[in-house]
């Protein structure tokens, strides 16, 4: 029910954005994420972007886990 999936923002017009989601294009509302830019990924929940995905944080999380791997290895 609280499912939200990453979607890539392709274009923006007012409160709406066109996003790509697993190869499919779809119109969504960006009313809740006015800061979003073209090229960002958003978390899409029931037709609304509920947050912009922080790419840097995502990379850092993965790096942290990879580091853990090299330490343990």
């Amino acid at each position, binding site marked *: *029910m*609280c*499912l*939200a*999936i*990453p979607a*890539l923002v392709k274009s923006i017009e007012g409160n709406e954005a066109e996003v790509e989601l*697993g190869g499919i294009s779809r119109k969504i*509302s960006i*009313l*809740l*994420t*006015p800061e979003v830019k073209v090229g960002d*990924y958003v*978390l899409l*929940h*029931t*037709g*609304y972007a*509920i*947050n912009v*995905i*922080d*790419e840097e*944080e*995502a990379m*850092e*999380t*993965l790096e942290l*886990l*990879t580091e*853990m*791997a090299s330490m*343990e*290895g």
Partner: protein
Amino acid sequence: MRFIDEFRNAELARVVIDRIHRRSKRHIRLMEFCGGHTVTILKHGIRQLLPPTVEMLSGPGCPVCVTANADLDKAIALAREPGVIIATFGDMLKVPGSYSSLQKVRADGADVRVVYSTLDALQIARENPERAVVFIGIGFETTAPTIAASVLQAEEEGIKNYYVLSMHKLCPPVIKALLNSGEVRLDGLICPGHVSAIIGSRPWGFAARDYGIACVVSGFEPLDVLQSVAMLVEQLEKGEPKVEIAYRRGVRPEGNLRAQELMNAVFEPSPANWRGIGVVPESGLRLRKEYQRFDAELSFDIDPGPTLEPKGCLCGDILRGVKTPIDCELFGDACTPEHPVGPCMVSSEGSCASYYHYGTL
């Protein structure tokens, strides 16, 4: 897909699992609040990968499951009102109320339409100005802002035939109620990722501060959940329970301020009735005075009649974390996803449905 595949990396998962095995000394009980996490955990067999010191419990984080029969009956009664179109998320269709379900009344001629978004519900209202369109507003803090947005949009456009039956629920207050009941002993909490995307991680502070519960906000891929378990083990081994975010790509400590603003503009906290838990103060949302003309409950004179609970169904106990689906005698026999007795078997994120689909171990 980006931001999904990376967090399913089996090699990294193995490393995190090893670490959990090495670090975990004392026996701990962790609850995953969210039904979405329950699905990830069962689907990927995460419980079996954890050391015996880490016990996992499922919590009440499934909005469909926690909707009380009394509230379901209201939705079903509204569907029977002449001229009404019900717009609802698909999950609600099969959930049995006291006497019927939205699916059954639809088969009897009620106009019940499944929508993906409140945007679709608004469109139905625009296209049917002579009918009343009632959106069945269920969901946690993740969904409530989208419903608030639809009310604001209807107000702006002057759409007069759009209503919301607000059965929204708030997560931190119910966790507090569970902890206060003393029924389940918990050491750590996997906090819901998308609820926290809206409210931030701070509202979980009380659990660490006042109850000594370790809290980690988690994403929904297997690596996210494993990382969260590793962080919880770390906190508990050190004896330093606090609130941390593992799901940093999706959640900021302060949450989504814009979404909070819209939600607070349209809704105010109210008591809510949780299945199996009862009425919890300030754990629901009702429309504020300024938006009461959108309130379906105030706008229609409905009488759903007395409430009946499904016989033998343990959903209430399961939602409180004191029973599991395998304790239920009806599980898999009298109760299946095709013929559900209780809501935990209907919702794809209900514990019973998850156990049914992904095995019962």
